[in-house]
Structures are given as structure tokens and as C-alpha cells.
């Protein structure tokens, strides 16, 4: 059975190595600040007792006041999983890209950019995925239709 990583323990470890990174902890997920996302991601992937080598799913939700990008990570070695979140403002949403760490994020980040308009800085090829070139707006935003 894939176990969820205990958030409190993880947050403790994270704040030891990357101070000021964690914004909120709940039972089921950890929210980190966008500016420290890459550092946290590197830590999650490279520290041997976490070893999150597999990015299951990347998506985003529009909450009108802010946008939230959700990363679901799994470690195949330890068979545990984690839901990581990042919040960014809605007017100029910018989140660093994790394609350098998990290539599986490539098309998924393009999809989020296309449908919700979050731009991932550092993505090698940030173009629309489904809508055609020159399409205006981002259809999955709550105020689109």
C-alpha cells in the first residue's frame, strides 16, 4: 500500500534544510512558497529517505483569489507519496518549472499554461498544448465562461 508521508515530520525536515519554505501544513498536503519550490523539489528528490523519483500528476486549480499548482509525487523505492502545493497570485501567475527534475512535468505544465494561464519559468518549450496558436484566454479559469 502506498503510504502518505506524514506532513508534520516532513515539514520539520524541510524547515531545517530550507528555512522559510513551508507556508501551510495540513494532514494531506504541504504548501510551499513559489520562490523556494525548486529547492524543496531538489531536496524531495535527492534526499535518500524521501527519494521522490516519480511525478504522478501535475495540475492546477483556480480559486478566484489565487491559483494553486498541485504536484502529486511518489517514491518508488519507499512506496510513499506526497501532495505538494504552491500558491501564486492570479493576475501574474508564475511558478518555477520542475521539468529539469521530472521530465514528466513537460506536457503537464504546458497543459496548465494553456488552460489556466500559469507560466512556468524555465520551461524549455512553453507553448499551448490543446488550443490553437493565437487563441485568447484560458478556458479552465472559473471566470472564462
Amino acid at each position: 500500500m502506498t503510504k502518505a508521508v506524514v506532513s508534520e515530520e516532513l515539514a520539520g525536515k524541510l524547515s531545517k534544510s530550507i528555512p522559510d519554505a513551508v507556508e501551510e501544513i495540513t494532514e494531506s498536503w504541504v504548501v510551499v512558497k513559489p520562490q523556494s519550490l525548486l529547492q524543496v523539489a531538489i531536496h524531495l528528490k535527492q534526499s535518500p529517505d524521501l527519494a521522490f523519483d516519480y511525478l504522478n500528476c501535475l495540475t492546477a486549480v483556480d480559486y478566484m483569489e489565487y491559483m494553486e499548482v498541485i504536484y502529486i509525487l511518489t517514491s518508488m523505492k519507499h512506496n510513499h507519496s506526497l501532495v505538494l502545493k504552491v500558491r501564486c497570485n492570479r493576475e501574474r501567475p508564475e511558478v518555477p518549472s520542475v521539468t529539469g527534475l521530472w521530465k514528466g512535468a513537460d506536457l503537464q505544465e504546458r497543459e496548465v499554461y494553456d488552460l489556466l494561464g500559469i507560466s512556468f519559468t524555465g520551461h524549455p518549450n512553453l507553448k499551448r498544448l490543446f488550443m490553437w496558436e493565437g487563441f485568447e484566454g484560458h478556458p479552465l479559469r472559473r471566470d472564462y465562461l
Partner: protein
Amino acid sequence: MKIDEAKTESVILEIPKAQPVMRDVEIIDTDAPGDDVFVLNMGPQHPSTHGVFRMRVTFSGELIEDMQPIFGYLHRGIEKLAETRTYTQFIPMTDRLSYLTSMANNHAYVVAVEKLAGIEVPERAEYIRVIMNELMRISSHLMAVGFFLNDLGCSVFTPLLYMYREREKLLDLFEMVCGARLTYNYMRIGGVSQDLPEEFLGYAKQFVKEMPSYIEEYEQLLAENEILLARTKGVGVLTPEMAVNSSASGPVLRASGIKWDLRKADPYSLYDRFDFDVPVGEIGDNYDRYRVRIEEMRQSLRILEQAIPQLPEGEVRTKVPQFLRPPKGEAYGRIETPQGELGFYLVSDGGIAPYRLHIRPPTLINVTALSEMVVGSLLADAIATFGSIDVCLGEIDR
């Protein structure tokens, strides 16, 4: 993992702090290709692209230098449509994702909703779900292998028609339980729509008994087939590091030698009660992907052999209100479909429709690694490699 991490570090150091790249319009530089560079657009209408998929292939001589997949020709906005439908009304839409694995799509979605709302499922319904899922896996793998061989040009259409013969029996079984042959809409939140008809178990038992001899027949036809070996051995290799890093799942991941199957790693339904093996490949080439699918069919039959006699009596559906209002919260439900990990991320605001529904499409993410797999090969091999991934455009574009 070593190669990968080295790559990772260098990429991260290079991340610029300046403006993000926001390119909506692709600028085509007509002067760019040199004399020996040739750009070919394959698709969107092409028999080997399994739907409306486009590959922009750049050649240097005869070898592929770059491959860019282009999607969106079948985009219907299913995730947006979900926001205006009740939880139950969305089930028929999942049929239209990967239409060759509809039963599994239904299952993945109801698993997510049940997780979100905390609904228990009766034991009989769980057994029926397992039986349906494994029948679906055999049917989908038959089509995957059949069309793959078709792409290779193994005596055009012959192997595919052999496989249609067995799939027909499976479609008859599905028709018995729900009346439909392709888009089933059979699973419900809290169970399945109706109990199995009386004659179903007899036919299913007979199918499970006969099928191994048909698989033997395919093996006799194909295992040592010259065309198959020449076109698949060592072609389209996906290394295990790359497979994990690019989030591949299902037979594509397992063919690269990674033993990761959600039925074992994170058992849902009743999969922890059955005895079966997870077949893996050795080097992750087209041949391994083909082998893994054939072996998985045998393992599915093993599960069916155990599940059909154990089927208990009882209810097939928990009472669930017509306008289900799950509590505020989020849930990610996933299952192992024939093509990989299909997941639904649901956000509920306490209303009758999901606030946000995201589908994790296994085939779209399996295509991520495609360009690495085909660079440096011939165009004909790229078509074979693409066929070996087993994509369905209904799911990629959603």
C-alpha cells in the same frame, strides 16, 4: 539514476531569472532548414497515428533529428464540462476518454468520487468491478497488440483480425451486462448499475477456459516471426531512468524493467486478494512492450480464474443520493488501466458538481518520452515505436 541527476543539476543552474517565455504564435523560420534538413508533418489525418495526432518530424538525411508531438485536434474540454454536471452525470463522459478501455475509465472515476465522499462499496460489486477490469484489460491489449502489428506491416490485417475474433466475445460479455458494446457507463458511485445477468458467468468461464489456447495461437503466429523481430528488437529503447523520470506508466514503464503496478503497489478494490505476477521487460524496446502485453493477458486470465468462482452473493450498489454532495475537500483516485495510471483529481466545494476535476491521462504522459525514443531512428521505426505505446487520442486531448 546517476546520469539523470547530473543532467538535472546542470539544467537547474541554467534557469533564467528574467521574463518567462510566453510564445503563443509559433514563428516558422523558412530559412532555417539547411540543404540536408527536411521537415515532415505526419498527421493529423494519417492511418498510423491512431486518431488525430500530428508529429512534426525533422530529418537529417534519412534519420530523425527531432520530433515534436502536436495535440489538440480532439480537445472537447471534458474537464470544463465536468464543472457543470453532477458527479453521476459525469460517468458517461469518462467512457469517451480512452474508448477502448471504457470500463476501466468508469472505475477510476468512481474510485475517486468514493474516496472524496467516503462511500463504501459492497463486496459483490467490487468483485464485478475486478472481473470487468480484467476482461477490459484483455480486450484493450488485444487491440494494442493487433494495431501495433498492423503498423509493422505483419501481413497486413491478419493478426489484427485474429484478435478481433476474441475481442468480439468480450464485447458480447460487456453487452450482456450493460447493453452497450463500446461506451459502457456501467459503474456507479457506490457499486455498479445492475447485477450480472444469469448467463454471464457461464460465458465468462468458457471464455477464460478457451482464451489461453488463443494466446498460444498468437504466439505460434508471432513469437518467432521474422518481420516482428526485425522491426521491434532494439528499436525505440526507453531506459528505466528515462521511463521513471518522464512519468511513464503501465506496460510502457514495466517493459523498461520497472516492477511497478498499482494493483500490487497500491492495491485498490480487491486486488490484494488475488494471486498474480507483474511481468516486466528487459531493455524497454518495442519487443518488450509487446511481450509485456501478451504476458499481462495471461495474468488477467489468472485473476479471472480466481475471481469468478469466488463471486459472493449480495447487493451490487450502496444507496447514494441522486444529488451527491461530497464534503469540502480534495481527493486523488487512481487505478491501473490497461494503458497505465489513470487518475482523477477532484476538488469539492460541497456542491452538487465538482469545483475542479482533473484527469491524469496515462497515454499523454507516456508520449512525453516519445521524442527521446525515436531520435536517431528511421521514420518507419518511429511509427512502430508510436504504435507500441498504445495511445488513444480521446484521452490525450480530452
